[in-house]
């Protein structure tokens, strides 16, 4: 139990996936204009990363490692993730219309999110078991959601401000992200 709490804090806050590991920067900068869309994106990412960590971990433990095929992990994982995202979308459409309406639009975008593949590979690298991998995936995705929602909140405030012309658009968002990253460094004191 204590180990799981440590993983939660470390994956969500200390080693925040966006602000300290730079995975999933594309949606972090692209879909963070409004809090509502950012939160939906975050929810979809939590959903997909948790499931994909579980599935990729099982495949690695039961298939790739015993057969000595671990060098194939990149190819297998990316295919599994792409197929899984497609499957989750079909499943939600059929069985849970409400959830599909809320997350459906964001699901296809997640295939291009490198955080999903990144978490799967980190799990293997750290030698996590199936349960720990799933939990680590969940915690990482929670970290992503915290980051993107905070970012959207700040960007809603920035919108009307008088920003120097050269910094309008992309640069000011990067500066904001940098300041957030400094704030997140503070969490490393928790350990």
């Amino acid at each position: 139990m204590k180990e799981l709490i440590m993983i939660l804090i470390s994956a969500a806050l200390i080693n925040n996936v966006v602000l300290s590991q730079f995975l999933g920067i594309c949606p972090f900068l692209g879909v963070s204009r409004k809090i509502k869309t950012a939160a939906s994106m975050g929810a979809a990412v939590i959903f997909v990363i948790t499931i994909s960590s579980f599935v990729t971990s099982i495949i690695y433990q039961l298939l790739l490692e015993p057969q000595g095929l671990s060098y194939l992990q990149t190819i297998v994982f990316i295919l599994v993730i792409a197929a899984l995202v497609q499957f989750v979308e079909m499943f939600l459409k059929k069985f849970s219309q409400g959830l599909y309406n809320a997350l459906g639009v964001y699901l296809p975008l997640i295939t291009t999110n490198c955080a999903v593949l990144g978490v799967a590979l980190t799990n293997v690298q750290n030698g996590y078991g199936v349960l720990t991998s799933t939990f680590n995936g969940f915690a990482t995705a929670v970290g992503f959601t915290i980051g993107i929602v905070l970012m959207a909140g700040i960007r809603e405030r920035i919108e009307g401000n008088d920003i120097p012309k050269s910094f309008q658009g992309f640069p000011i968002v990067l500066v904001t992200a940098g300041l957030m990253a400094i704030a997140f460094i503070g969490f490393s004191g928790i350990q």
Partner: protein
Amino acid sequence: MGACRERLYNGVVKENPTFVLMLGMCPTLAVTSSAFNGFGMGMTTMVVLALSNLVISAVRGIIPDRVRIPAFIVIVASLVTIVQLLLQAYIPVLNDLLGIYIPLIVVNCIILGRAEAYASKNPPLPSMFDGVGMGLGFTLGLTLIGMFRELLGSGGIFGLQIIPERFHISIFVMAPGAFFVLAGLTAMLNRLKNRSNGGAGSGGQGTVCGHCGGCGNLLCSVSREEPDHLSGASDAGKGGSV
């Protein structure tokens, strides 16, 4: 030969992936804590990009249109695995430095973006040069960012010490520095662009969306919340998955 040279120029200057197209932001920010790291990542990506463009262009007539994206992903993932194994065997230093970001080249927008935009429509040789050009442009961007971060953060360039230790601003080799340096460089570029537009252009605005152009504008359509684009985006996504 002229077409090949034009491709190189296009990749390095006109459509520079880091500063103009804003693609592949994850490695751009993550592995540029020193000039050497940025250079190594850029060169690795260039090798994958040139080979993937060559292979995809060579088989472009065989792959049915409907399954082209999954096929591209398999080709790119195989090439990345090959490059990773080669690095492990011959340049283990670089492999240790870049770590998890080598397999993550698979999901780099530049590679699928170039495959889709150029290699799937053009003959092999220009496609390969397109990959080399884009890769060189990416290397240039990463090395430049790495140089700034290394100079400010640990006082050297390519390991050559210039600034004494007292004056190091170590935040620049840590995570936040990556954001700041890229922000500064992009702002500088915007300023140059604005000036050449007679100060009237709004070059800075809308670039947030420009950076994901290569991913089929999927992210932009969501951030704009336009229903037409949304349906288009999910269709594109369906084509994109297996």
